[in-house]
């Protein structure tokens, strides 16, 4: 719609506008009630419109910024355009939601400005065609991550630091990976890079992959998300871990697997990816099952859904990749939807721990309905979007190896079970007296939930539309010619998913009967023989790589300090003692009676004469 002249301007506008607006938001005095929320909402809306307008074009441009390969080059092509628009869409919804939610909380201005900075940097990272520029925007997010979590409250800075350190460390790995890749390919322009995934290339791939999966929050680097869930303000959880991080992380993962390294289907790296995806999937959802807090449960689910996407992309098969990408956008939609429901519950009841919730369905019907839709779509029930993307992933996974399919299936079983438990504990069951007076949350919070629920349904029914969006991406790297993939859901797989869901319902009913109410529905799994040991250890953070790394680091730096003290000992103690002992030896030899001096003199004289004469 916009001719090419305006395209460079619009691209820079998408990145620059939110950044400038964020500075503006900080300046607005706190007295004017919710102006900040409105400003961020409008800015997000404007960038959304711009990106929708320029959606169709396939365009890239660059101008030099610094030498040595770091120049600003942005590229708009279907995949990056889609991600940018999706990100802006979520930004609009979350800012709308948080106008009401963040009202009256201190540091509100800071929250909105960080939100806008995140939006700007994400669109910058996605549009960047130069790896270094991507790195620049990517690590910029670190700064904002810390800010947004720390805004949450007094003690929020601990989990903010944890998040910052984990992301900082993995970003540094990614930086060295990028530099290695740039060195091997002699250029940092992504579109021009293609490297063999062997030897140094493999090392580069692994390093970059660490950065990508840690940003998307998968297994080894996930531990900051559950802590942040309690500490950080809820819109942050809905926006960043819920949507944005998944978008960028998986976008970048696909770019390196498809464009830069062109992973072959059976290669070790893709198997590695699939294993990471599978394990994340399984462990995270098992942890989610036993959670007693609405937000922590959702945050663990966010981690497990990433497992699906990584599994999908890891298969390096067209259907798998498209399944993964489709699952990415679906998950973004229903995950942020679920978080928003949690937000409205928290807004009304003031708490998100399941013990104090119950029977809210009658009091907050719309929230309950949106929760129902998003919960069903996340557990992969037929008409909703979760089902189709999971089917594609199952189809690709079963092709690669039964173990992956079994893990995926188990994962969806537990997902369904945990959401049944959550729904039962929060919305059904007996209404607690403290929640008597609550009523439905305000309109401005409900609209985003409803929109997201609608999207779940839309993408469920017209899933072929989504496939058409992702097709050109896969085509460009795989077959190179215009072939249309026709995917049809294999009836056998669909039947198995149906059985799994039924089993989940049965398990839930069994749990309710044993545990007497929705909250303890999962206790029978919790204290099963071996699993309970693992669970108790997990709760005590044994498996948290961050804690292990910190303990190791303490020991390592103690050794280093010892080395430093030894070097100091040499210069402080050893040198001083030696020189003083020699000095006092000379002083002692210096007796007071002169005959000794005389003897020295004569001996000296004898030595000199002997030397001179011979």
């Amino acid at each position, binding site marked *: 719609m916009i001719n090419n002249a305006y395209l460079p301007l619009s691209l820079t506008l998408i990145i620059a506008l939110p950044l400038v607006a964020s500075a503006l938001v900080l300046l607005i005095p706190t007295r004017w009630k919710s102006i900040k929320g409105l400003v961020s909402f409008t800015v997000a809306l404007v960038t959304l419109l711009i990106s929708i307008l320029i959606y169709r074009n396939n365009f890239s441009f660059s101008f030099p910024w610094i030498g040595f390969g770091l120049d600003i080059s942005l590229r708009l092509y279907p995949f990056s355009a889609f991600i940018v628009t999706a990100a802006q869409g979520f930004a609009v919804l979350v800012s709308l939601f948080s106008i009401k939610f963040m009202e009256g909380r201190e540091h509100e201005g800071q929250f909105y400005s960080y939100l806008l900075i995140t939006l700007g940097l994400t669109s910058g990272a996605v549009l960047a065609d130069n790896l270094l520029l991507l790195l620049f925007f990517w690590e910029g997010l670190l700064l904002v991550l810390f800010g947004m979590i720390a805004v949450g409250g007094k003690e929020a800075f601990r989990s903010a630091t944890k998040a910052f350190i984990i992301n900082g460390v993995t970003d540094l790995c990614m930086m060295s990976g990028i530099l290695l890749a740039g060195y091997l390919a002699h250029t940092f322009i992504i579109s021009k890079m293609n490297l063999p995934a062997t030897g140094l290339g493999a090392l580069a791939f692994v390093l970059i992959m660490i950065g990508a999966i840690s940003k998307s929050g998968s297994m080894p680097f996930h531990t900051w998300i559950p802590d942040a869930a309690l500490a950080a303000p809820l819109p942050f959880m809905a926006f960043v871990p819920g949507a944005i991080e998944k978008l960028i992380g998986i976008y970048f993962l696909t770019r390196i697997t498809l464009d830069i390294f062109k992973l072959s289907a059976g290669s070790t790296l893709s198997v590695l990816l699939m294993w990471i995806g599978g394990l994340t999937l399984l462990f995270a959802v098992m942890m989610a099952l036993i959670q007693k807090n609405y937000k922590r449960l959702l945050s663990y689910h966010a981690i497990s859904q990433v497992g699906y996407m990584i599994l999908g992309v890891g298969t390096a098969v067209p259907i798998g990749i498209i399944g993964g990408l489709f699952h990415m956008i679906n998950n973004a939609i229903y995950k942020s939807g679920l978080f928003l429901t949690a937000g409205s519950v928290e807004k009304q009841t003031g708490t998100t721990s399941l013990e104090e919730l119950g029977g809210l369905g009658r009091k907050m019907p719309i929230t309950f309905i949106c929760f129902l839709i998003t919960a069903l779509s996340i557990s992969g029930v037929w008409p909703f979007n979760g089902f189709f993307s999971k089917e594609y992933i199952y189809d690709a996974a079963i092709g690669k190896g039964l173990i992956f399919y079994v893990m995926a299936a188990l994962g969806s079983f537990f997902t369904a079970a945990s959401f049944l438990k959550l729904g039962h504990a929060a919305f059904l069951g007996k209404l607690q007296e403290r929640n008597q007076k609550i009523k439905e949350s305000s309109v401005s919070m409900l609209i985003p939930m409803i929109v997201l629920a609608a999207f779940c349904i839309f993408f469920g029914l017209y899933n072929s539309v989504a496939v058409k969006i992702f097709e050109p991406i896969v085509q460009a790297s795989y077959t190179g010619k215009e072939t249309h993939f026709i995917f049809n859901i294999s009836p056998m797989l669909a039947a198995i998913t149906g059985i799994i869901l039924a089993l989940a319902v049965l398990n839930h009913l069994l749990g309710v009967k044993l545990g007497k109410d929705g909250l303890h529905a999962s206790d029978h799994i919790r204290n099963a023989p071996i699993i309970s040991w693992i669970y108790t250890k997990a709760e005590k953070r044994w498996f948290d790589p961050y804690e292990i790394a910190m303990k190791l680091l303490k020991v390592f730096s103690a050794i280093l300090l010892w080395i430093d003290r030894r070097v100091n000992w040499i210069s402080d103690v050893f040198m001083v003692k030696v020189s003083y002992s020699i000095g006092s030896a000379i002083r002692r030899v210096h007796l007071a*009676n002169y005959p000794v001096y005389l003897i020295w003199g004569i001996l000296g004289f004898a030595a000199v004469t002997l030397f001179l004469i011979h």
Partner: protein
Amino acid sequence: MILNIFILILLVIAALWMVMTRSLLRSAIGLALVSLVLTIIMFRLSSPLAAVFELSVCAGLIPVLFISTISLTYPLSKQEMMEHFKARLRRFWYLPVLVVIVGVILSLLKIKPDITLPLPESAKDVRDVLWNLRPIYLIGQIIVLLAGAFGVVILFKDSKKDEH
């Protein structure tokens, strides 16, 4: 040649005796003895003028001065003298040993003075050498004498004042 060596040994013994004797009086006498032996050596080396000066000043004047002042002082008791002797023995026992060692070393060197002794072409008279060729010696001698006298005056003259 043997005579020279005998006289030299005599000189060394006299010096040692002077240093090691118990009473001050005897060491003053020892000083006179040493200068006497020295004058003999000088005569043998055919430098009469130096020998005469040595005899009159070192053998004569200085020992007389020493003996007169020492005799004025209050003589030490036998027992104190013995202590002094032992103390001195303990401090200087190695002096003779040292002299012997250095003597042995020097003899080992077997310095063969194969130089031809350049006889002084004209036995210049001491007087004109002092006055014409090297007047600086005169000034030097005068300053030395004056400095020595002045030093003694400064250090010891007013010490009497302090006593009473």
